[in-house]
């Protein structure tokens, strides 16, 4: 069964000016800016979805985004978010 992704409940995800989103980890004081797609990915990490399901939902939400193009990007995004403690992986 592919890994699913779960948001760290301590993370703050703030909307900021200029269509930016700010992820804040209060445990580490780590801050990371993202665009709306990154924020949408993070919100989809509710513990029920794996990579392909997240990609599918993103492609539906952001029309015109080709599935093949974004899979690698979102996989990399999830990997870096996991490394920074913003999400965890459920095997």
């Amino acid at each position, binding site marked *: 069964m592919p890994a699913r992704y779960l948001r760290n409940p301590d*993370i*703050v*995800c*703030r*909307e900021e000016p*200029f269509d930016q989103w700010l992820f*804040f980890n*209060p*445990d580490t*004081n780590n801050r990371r800016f993202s665009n709306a797609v990154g924020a949408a990915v993070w919100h989809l990490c509710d513990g029920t979805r794996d990579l392909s399901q997240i990609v599918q939902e993103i492609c539906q939400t952001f029309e015109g985004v080709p599935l093949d193009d974004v899979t690698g990007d979102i996989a990399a995004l999830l990997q870096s978010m996991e490394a920074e403690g913003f999400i965890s992986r459920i095997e």
Partner: protein
Amino acid sequence: MADLTLTPTPHSIDISLTGRCNLKCKYCFYANEMTALTDLSTEKWLACFEELGRLNVMEVTLSGGEAFTRPDLFELIDGVIANRMRYSILSNGTLITDKTLEQFAVGKRRQRLNYIQISIDGSRPEVHDASRPNSFTRAVRGLRLLKEAGFPVTVRVTINKHNLHDLENIAALLLEDIGLPSFSTNDAIPMGSGCQNEQEIALGPREQLEAMDIMRRLLERYPGRLNAQAGPQAKIQMYAEMEHARRTGEKTTRWGMGYLTACGCTFSKLAILHDGTIVPCNMLTVRLGNVTTDSIREIWHTHPVLKAMRERRFIPMQEVPGCANCEWAPYCNGSCPALPYTLYGDFNRANPHDCYRRFIQEVGHGVAQ
């Protein structure tokens, strides 16, 4: 009027948890009528922190009065932590003991702590206690305890008439003896107790100049270890940049010259007084509402005072009362609005304590000579 892009909610909030203090410092801006207000209860502060959590506020700075006089301080800190925030504490240090440090070991209290700032105004009791009565020994003990236990601790030195000639000793105490990586300075301003004690405590222009010379020497001796957002140390650079801009026509990009641009706080933060009153800053106490009855989000977006403060930056210095004919107006930013608001009831005025024209008039020359 240009459209200002504002964060949906504040990034941080300065919170005066209590009006009580075990000291009576001679320049405390949080004095006089402030102490007549009643502290919010534990429950009301915890409810406030829940609202801040819902607003995605990231950090709070807890002060007073003296925050450590609240017996429920750690319960309140746990409320901050439960609502996904980090925190800092501003303290006089005198109530910090081994037992205090043990309480920080519980849960995430230590992990979420940005820093504890202790006020130290002298290298020895006679100097420190002249502005912060009967507190040197306990304040330094608290500072040493924090430093030795590896806490993120910093010091604020408020430069005043009593410690002007002790600044080099203070730097040696803090940086060499105690071994802090750095400390910061500002100066006593005539607000609160500082208003009553202005003649005794606040630096005049000639003393400002002397303090700037001393701080210049200390900056050379301890590169990168002294910080300042205000006061003589900050003025070294600010006045030099004004001189440079006037001489060359090249204006700094660090801050907006020629307009009332000083203080960008209302774009990212608010403050709450110990009775729950919401204000732009705990030094600029225009009442915006109260956390027990009003929505912080609504105040942040719609309050006319905040709107007016954010639009100060569009007011040319030449249109500011008292500045119309000033040759420095095209290079000035008016400095902190809290003092003019206290003096004149108007934050759209220049801060007389930081006025470069007044400084030159009284000293007889500018910083470039």
